Every structure is written in C-alpha cells, then in structure tokens.
C-alpha cells in the first residue's frame, strides 16, 4: 500500500495548535475552524493517496528527460498537475483577491505535509508558487501583480526561483547575472543560473522566473542584488502571452534523488533579448529573498516530517508482514515483535510525531502574528519565537529524516537495499533536504549567531522558561517525573552555556571565540532539536489529558511514545551540550 495520510495525528495536532495559539479568538479567522480543516484534510488525503502517491515511484524510476532543449516530465505528471491545479490546491493559502482560497497556514500545513509525503518530487512547484506569490504580494507593483498573480494562483503558470550561479551558492553576494536598464523602464537580463527547480518543464504554457541579478552600477556583494521577474514568454498588458523571451534551458542535472523534479540550468539573454521587470526596490533583492527563505525553510522542515512519516509507514507495514525469527515460546513471528525493530520504529514515530507537532504550532503561531489586532510587544515575542524555531525545525527535521531513512532500510534488511521495494528512494530523496534552502551548517549559524546572540538570548530564554514551566507540571507524575527532571536539567545546561559560551559576558567576542562557537553550532542545534521535540511531546500529553472524548488506547500509546522519547533520545541532548561546551576550540588545532 502506498502512503495514507496519518489523519488522526494530524487532526489532533491541528486542533491543538489552533486552540493553543488562540486562533479561535481571532475574528479574521472566523469560519476557518478545525471543522473546515478536517473537511479540507479529508479531501486532500484522498487526492494525495489516489493521485500523487502512485506516481512517486514512476517519477523516481523514469526521471525527467531533456530533449532538444525541452524538459519532459515523467509519465503522469501532466495529468496530475492539471488535476492538482483544477482542484484549486495551489491557491489554498493565497489571497482570494487573486483567485486563491485564503486559508490560514495552520490548515495549509497538514495539507502540504500530505503532498510532500505522497510525492515530494512532483509537488516542488507548489512551494514555489506559494513563496513566489508571497514575494510578488509584498514587493511587486500593481501591474505585475495583476498580470502574474491570477495565473500563478490558478496554476496556469508556474514560478521558478533563479538564485544560484556556478560561483554563487550559499554566498549569493558573489552572483553576477546582469540587468541592464532600458528606456521603457524594463531591464535586459543576461546570465547563467543553475539548480533551478522546475526552471523548465512541459506542465504549463509559461513560467515566471524570479531572477536575482545586478544592475551595472550596483554595489558589490549582497547589497547590490536586485530581483526581477522574467517570464519564459513575454506577458502583455492584458496578461496574454507574447513572444519567446530568450530564456533557454541548457540542461538538467542527473541527481541522487528527486528524479521527478527537473533541476535546470537556465541561460537568460543568449540573444540579448531577455526582458525582465524589477520587483521591489533596486538593490533590495535579498530582502525579498528573506521572505521566501523563511517560508522555504519551514516548508523544508515539513519535508523532513513528511518523508519521516512515509518511511515510518513503509517500515511498519513491512515489519508486520515479514516473519523472521521466533519469540520466547519458539513461535515464528513478524519482525515487529523483535524489540530492536520496535526500537527503530519508535524512534521514527516519536520524532516524526514531535516534529509534526512543532511544525503545526509554528504555522499556527504565524497565523496568530499575522492576524493579531494589536501589533504590540506580545506579538513581537511570538514573531521572535517563530524566528528562533525556524532554523531548528528546518535543520533538525531534515537531519533526522536522513537517519530515519537509513533506519527504514534497516527494517527492510536486504530488501531495503533492493530498489524494487522503493524505500531506497526515500533515502535518496531525503538527502537534499539538509542542503537546499540553507544547509544545516547555515541554519545552525543562523540559530547561534543571529537568533540567539543577535538578541542577547532573549527569545531563547523565553522558550526555555516555557519548557521549564511545562516540565514542572509533570514533576509529580509517576511515569514522567524523571523525564521532566531531565528536561529541566537540559534547560539548566543551556542556560549556563548561554552565560559561559553563547553570549560573551562583555559582548565583545574575539574572532577565535566566534570560530569555536561556529564549530559547535550544529551540536547546539541538535540539542535544541531534541529539547523541542521533548517539549512538544509533553505539551501534547498535557493538553490532551484535559480534553474530553479522547481515545484512551490512542492516548496510552502517545504516553508510551513520549516516555520512549524521554528515555531514548533526551539523553543525547545533554551529550550534544557537552560537545558545545568542550569541543569548539579543537577544530582550529588541526592543520588541513
């Protein structure tokens, strides 16, 4: 059986995030309640299982092809795209003004998770449409918005983000695609871009490229980058399609995973006839990118959750079917009866569940900040919380899903290494998630330097206080007292590291200190990831215990899941913090 949405977990976590973030009190979200969320999720679950999931292995095995300058997507992609667009899924969280449904993020989150689990390679275009639209909404002039947004929201056109160049990857300041101003206010674009997801394809008539480029007199580095909208075919005033805009796909990458998603090299202006329009202010391109980046990072973290769920489902199904070995009575048993296989399944399930909870809370918190009537201090605290959690969610969820994907194969044994079972695809597809949208190293640096040191640890301290408070409510619980205590110990350790290492007491850090800290930023993020998962699992228990109509056997399992996480994974947080404390200076000792 292919993927089935974990409807029950989703429903529970969606309703909880909605309540806990106070969305029920927001007038602007009137009618967008969990009841609607359930109706939408139910239909999305059908579509994910019925249309997208069956194409996942087709995309992997067949991949995209590049023929005569054109990209051909795998069999079934065109039909599925048509259905996806016609069903209105692209505009789910986009404004009604441009044809979307304007649903809040807390409803979009579980729906997106379903798409990502069912067929990650296919739905890459969706996050691009969402992020691209948000950029245009925030920065583009009315004329661009009117001509492009309705087509993007309806799925008639797709969006491509052209950032990377051969010499400008994580360091975008190094890019040198040119934008030459023309008399009519437009720009002539010229340059080469690589790694452009859905940069070219056979799904739609037109593709709107959002291209980062430099004008002739722009400052060097990242302060001289501007954003342009560059269509594959020109768009006239009334929105109709004009002539070819000199945007050529020069090839697609042969990748380790995500074979169904075309990763294109694009050449703009080979014939000096590629026209672009400025989006936002000159030299403010990176600012627009930050809007996209936050969105993309949260979406990428959700990919970790989604692939973790897919892997867990496959592993569980196999473990229940495969008989091997005997139990203590000498009877042949399915491998799910073996304690070590249980352990692997529980590691996958507990962390995926906790990260899903975290992701849903973040989405609901964004809804809360965006809809808040008073833009006061408490709203800023919420925004800072989201900013703090974003790199943790992105990097931790994607790093962990790589470990989980290995465990899925481990559960399958030799059959997992055989392509026929399809689980190797999960590992190959997952591998890019720690790299794109900012590598794990970049997330960790963002966390440590910008999010923690940047505000003198204020947001982190607030988070730690919340976690402490929650943990203390479990202090006298028979089962969870030890876990609560250990959580408190981790919090205490982070707090002491904050004083001794993370925040320099005088505020003037020497460069060697910064290097030492940078060297342990990933272990720090890992510790925070585990702590946040613990927090979320305890939060679910605390919340669900006081709800009515809870399903006792399900709750019993959730308690077991949280207890498992406390016993198996929480100690790793302390170990990682010990690394943060001691290992930083060592990296400078070795001569490479």
């Amino acid at each position, binding site marked *: 059986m292919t993927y*089935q949405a974990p*409807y*029950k977990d989703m429903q529970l976590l969606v309703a909880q995030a909605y309540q806990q973030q106070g969305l029920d009190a927001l007038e602007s979200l009137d*009618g967008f309640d969990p009841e*609607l969320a*359930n*109706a*939408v999720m*139910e*239909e999305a679950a*059908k*579509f994910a299982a*019925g*249309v997208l999931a069956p194409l996942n292995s087709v995309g992997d095995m067949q991949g995209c092809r590049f023929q005569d300058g054109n990209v051909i997507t795998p069999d079934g992609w065109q039909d599925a795209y048509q*259905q996806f667009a*016609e*069903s*209105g*899924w692209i*505009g*789910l969280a986009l404004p009604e003004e441009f044809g979307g*449904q304007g649903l809040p993020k807390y409803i979009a989150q579980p729906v997106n998770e379903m798409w990502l689990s069912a067929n990650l390679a296919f739905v890459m275009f969706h996050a691009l449409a969402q992020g691209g639209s948000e950029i245009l909404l925030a920065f583009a002039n009315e004329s661009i918005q009117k001509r492009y947004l309705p087509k993007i929201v309806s799925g008639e056109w797709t969006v491509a983000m052209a950032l990377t160049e051969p010499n400008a990857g994580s360091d975008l300041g190094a890019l040198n695609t040119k934008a030459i101003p023309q008399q009519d206010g437009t720009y002539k674009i010229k340059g080469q871009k690589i790694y452009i997801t859905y940069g070219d394809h056979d799904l739609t008539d037109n593709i709107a490229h959002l291209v980062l480029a430099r004008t002739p007199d722009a400052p060097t580095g990242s302060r001289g980058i501007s954003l342009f909208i560059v269509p594959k075919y020109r768009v006239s005033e009334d929105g109709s399609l004009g002539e070819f805009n000199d945007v050529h796909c020069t090839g697609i990458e042969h990748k380790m995973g995500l074979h169904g998603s075309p990763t294109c090299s694009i050449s703009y202006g080979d014939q000096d006839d590629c026209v672009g329009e400025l989006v936002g202010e000159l030299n403010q391109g990176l600012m627009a990118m930050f809007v996209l980046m936050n969105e993309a990072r949260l979406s990428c973290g959700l990919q970790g959750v989604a692939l973790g769920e897919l892997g867990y489902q496959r592993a569980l199904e196999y473990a229940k079917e495969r008989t091997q070995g005997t139990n203590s009575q000498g009877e042949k048993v399915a491998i799910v009866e073996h304690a070590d296989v249980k352990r692997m399944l529980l590691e996958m399930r507990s962390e995926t569940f906790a990260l899903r909870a975290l992701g849903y809370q973040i989405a609901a918190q964004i809804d809360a900040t965006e809809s808040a009537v008073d833009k006061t201090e408490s709203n800023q605290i919420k925004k800072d919380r989201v900013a703090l959690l974003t790199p943790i969610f992105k990097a931790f969820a994607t790093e962990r899903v790589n470990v989980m994907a290995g465990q899925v194969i481990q559960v399958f044994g030799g059959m997992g290494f055989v392509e026929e079972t399809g689980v190797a695809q999960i590992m190959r597809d997952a591998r890019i998630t720690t790299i794109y949208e900012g590598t794990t190293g970049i997330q960790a640096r963002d966390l440590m330097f910008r999010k923690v040191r940047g505000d003198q640890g204020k947001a982190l301290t607030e988070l730690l206080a919340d976690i402490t408070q929650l943990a203390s409510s479990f202090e006298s619980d028979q089962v969870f007292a030890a876990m609560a205590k250990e959580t408190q110990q981790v919090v205490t350790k982070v707090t002491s590291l904050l004083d001794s290492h993370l925040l320099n007491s005088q505020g003037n850090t020497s460069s060697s200190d910064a290097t030492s800290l940078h060297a342990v930023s990933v272990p720090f993020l890992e510790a925070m990831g585990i702590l946040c998962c613990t927090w979320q699992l305890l939060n679910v228990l605390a919340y669900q215990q006081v709800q009515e109509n809870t*399903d006792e*056997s*399900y709750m019993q399992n959730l308690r077991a899941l949280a207890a498992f996480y406390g016993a198996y994974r929480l100690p790793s947080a302390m170990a990682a913090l010990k690394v943060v404390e001691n290992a930083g200076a060592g990296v400078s000792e070795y001569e490479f």
Partner: protein
Amino acid sequence: MKILVGVKRVIDYNVKVRVKADQSNVDLTNVKMAMNPFCEIAVEEAVRLKEAGVASEVIVMSVGTTQSQEQLRNAMALGADRAILVEAESDVEPLNVAKAFAAVVEKEQPGLVILGKQSIDSDNNQMGQMLAALTKRPQGTFASKLVIDGDKALVTREIDGGLRTIALTLPAIVTTDLRLNEPRYAKLPDIMKAKRKPLETLSLADLGVTSKAHCRIDKVEAPATRSAGIKVASVDELISKLKDEAKVI
C-alpha cells in the same frame, strides 16, 4: 427534475475493521469514517446528470448520527445542492431507513432516486429495493450505466453472465454498481462553498417514522484466519485430497 441521493456514513474502507471485545458489534470508536463508496458513485452520477442539464437539483440525504453531517457536506462539495439529515442512532435497519426515504420522496417528489446498491459496513443490499416497494416506483438495481431518455431511465444492470438494459418509467429508483462511474475529487473552492449550502436536520418522528427493530445481532466474529497451505507430491494426491478432505469434487 430533482434527484434524491442517499449517503451513508460508514467505516473508511482503508481502516482495518476490528470486532469489539464483547463480540457485540464492530468497534467504531475513534476509527476514521467516510462516505460509503457506492454512495459516492450515486452522488457522482447525480451531479453528472445535473451538469448535463438533465437534473435541476441534487438533494443528498442521510439517516444517521449527527456526525453524518460531514459526509453530507462532502457530498455537497462534490456538487449536491442541499442536504437533509434525519438524525437517528447508528445502525438503523434498512426498512426504517427506507421508510424515512419514502417520506422524503413523498415530500420532495424527486424524478429519480439514486442510491448505492449496498453499504460496505453491513452489506445488506436491501434499502433500494425496499424503497421501490414502499413508493411503488420502478427499480433498476446494480446499474453500470444510466441514460435518461425523456420520461424513461435506461438502466444497464450487471447480472450473472452479462449486462441487461431495462427501461424504467420515471419517477424511478436506481442503485449503483461499482462500474457506473469514477467519482471525482472535490475541488477546494467547492469544499469551502459546501459549508454554506443548506443542510436541514429532521428526526424520524418528523417524518412519521417509528424505528422498529426486526432483527437482533447475537454475535459478531472476525473471519477465521487462513491456515497455511500444503504441498502435494502428485496430481493423484491432489485429487484425492480435493475429494476426501475438501469434498469439493
């Protein structure tokens, strides 16, 4: 022409069905429920007739618990215009459901009633036939094709060994088989619109129906698990086993 369509809330076909520990029934607590697949086909057929201009209004109706609203909303997201929920405890017997439908047929006077041939939970396959008898309307069951031709409904039925097409004089009752159509996926904007479509809630008493129990469930058991097969050494052994042990030849 109005079309009345029956919708039943049943256990989702993906859910592994479990029997309650006391064997009194199937365990439905906290399992995912969904629209009966044959009812989905009935809704789809009605909506297609409306899209083709044959029908003017599609009314969906369910007899069941308050939660059946979810399935009625789902049917409206697929294109039905309005819904009637007759609230009742779960497990209403087919004859009682048929009586409730007969009362609504009397009130709404639909030109066509389309129902699933059976529900995947109790597999009774009775309601359509009972409704035809109660309303004295002609019936075409197990439809794999439906064509409305003037005042006739041409129903192609799946029968043993082939297909049989019959002409019914409208108004009539049709029950759907699996191959009648492939239901669509609801579109997101239609899911949103379905929230605002009218849903009328009635009780059995409102329709003058008294729910009467005609049968009693003594015990529910899970099917016996299949035992392992054996290898036979020769054709002769196979034949003798089929004769003497399985007693099938």
